[in-house]
């Protein structure tokens, strides 16, 4: 039974990372109807930004994390201003399809830029703490604890922002009914820009956390992006608390399957769950079929 501790630690850690990646993806998807295929790339850029700030420029850790956040936010803003906004103006009725293709192009471009700048070989993320706390039966690595605490703190802060502030309320209102929000005087395009900045900032930090227990590589964000997509679909679009619960739940299931049946069965098990959930509940566990909302 002493093995259950490490499996849970691993499951909860990946769950926290999935949840953070999912939160950013779901925010944009739920409010703009935009599946941002470059969301994983924003994670990658965040990881590399922190690496550059800490290793190459020798900046202290908080500044390196801030750099990752800033890079994520700026690239998120650029994706809106240069890609999403013009596309939505030109052809609103096809936006949900064209934006997927367009952001996929953005992802490829940025990923290749990273490859060009940093090379393809994996790099070590300097923002990583060694050592572990000994909890009787097993060791809880500090890095895992930091990841889980940071992710929960960020999700909590995002939830407070969305529910307790006027700007957050305007984001939710716009997601639920853009026309009504306009009638209330909400500048909807500016709200969308804020959502992409917020999502990019979360992705930037998430990239730092992911790379701190793996390694930096140009495809760093691909796996969290894929998992975040799965979480959004299983939870139901736009339900943020549901997406977070789903992330933790499925990550723990994945860790258990990997431990009991072998590492290569983790992902097929996730996909099997997706299929079963969608057969029973096409709108997702927490979602409704007909509407997207936040």
């Amino acid at each position, binding site marked *: 039974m002493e093995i259950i501790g490490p499996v849970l630690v691993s499951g909860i850690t990946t769950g926290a990372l999935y949840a953070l990646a999912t939160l950013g993806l779901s925010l944009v998807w739920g409010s703009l109807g935009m599946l941002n295929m470059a969301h994983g790339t924003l994670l990658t850029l965040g990881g590399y930004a922190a690496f550059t700030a800490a290793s190459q420029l020798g900046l202290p850790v908080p500044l390196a994390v801030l750099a990752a956040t800033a890079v994520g936010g700026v690239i998120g803003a650029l994706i809106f201003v240069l890609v999403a906004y013009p596309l939505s103006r030109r052809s609103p009725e096809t936006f949900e399809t064209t934006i997927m293709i367009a952001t996929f192009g953005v992802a490829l471009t940025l990923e290749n830029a990273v490859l060009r700048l940093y090379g393809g070989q994996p790099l070590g993320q300097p923002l990583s703490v060694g050592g572990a706390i000994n909890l009787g039966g097993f060791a809880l690595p500090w890095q895992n604890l930091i990841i889980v605490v940071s992710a929960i703190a960020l999700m909590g802060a995002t939830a407070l922002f969305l529910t307790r502030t006027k700007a957050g*309320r305007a984001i939710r209102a716009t997601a639920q009914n853009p026309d009504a929000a306009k009638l209330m*005087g*909400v500048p909807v395009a500016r709200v969308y820009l804020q959502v992409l900045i917020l999502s990019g900032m979360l992705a930037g930090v998430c990239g730092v956390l992911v790379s701190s227990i793996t390694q930096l590589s140009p495809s760093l964000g691909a796996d969290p992006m894929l998992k975040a997509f799965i979480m959004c679909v299983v939870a139901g679009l736009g339900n943020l608390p549901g997406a977070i619960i789903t992330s933790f739940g499925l990550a723990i299931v994945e860790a258990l399957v990997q431990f009991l049946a072998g590492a290569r069965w983790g992902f097929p098990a996730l996909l099997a769950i997706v299929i079963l959930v969608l057969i029973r509940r096409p709108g997702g566990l927490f979602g409704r079929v007909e509407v997207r909302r936040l």
Partner: protein
Amino acid sequence: MVEPSNSPCLVVNGLVTGYDGRNVLTGISLSVDPGELVTVVGPNGHGKSTLLRAISGLLPVRKGSISLNGRVISGQPAHRVAANGVIHVPQGDLLFAGMSVLENLLMGAYLDSDQAAVARRLEEVFTLLPKLAERQTQIAASLSGGERRMVGIGRGLMMNGSVMLIDEPSLGLAPIIIEQIYEVIARLKASGRTILLVEENPARVADIADRIHLLDNGAFVWSGEPAVLLQRDELLATYLGG
């Protein structure tokens, strides 16, 4: 209360608008004076909602102009029109379904950063619509049709505007609820509000309207006093064809 004034609050002049390749409104002109309740009636699908959507900027104006208190507002995006003082209580309410009643009302005061004024208006809304005070924390999607309509009107009242557009407040409601809603509208008129109301049923608005426009196929076919309209041939022709 409204100052007696000779200049109209809202003026629509030769408005042409529509969707895609088709014009729905083919030249609408109307004006609403301060404190007046002007009504546009006509069968469904003849452009009543389109008119209000064009005034509030949700739909682009193709020809003609719209001005509010002497300033041209046509051509501005909807959020700018709202900031200029047009309140639009849309058809089907368009509530923020996942938000509480209170949050919906506060969204109405989005443009107002004066907290004291917002709190005062919230009190006024709760006095006029006591049901909303009881339901403050309830999620909008779980309300009944009549309560939702009240949230829609209350949300509009939270805005600081000079003219209120109300789109078919009786839509989909039981007769007794419709009466309650029209009592609220009568009280809004009595308090001096300037209102442009759209309704399918002319008899419903005959009592409270100062003036009525009859809309048929994108243009006004008759305009005048409500008492006269109910005896006019145009009314039957519009609703029954002919």
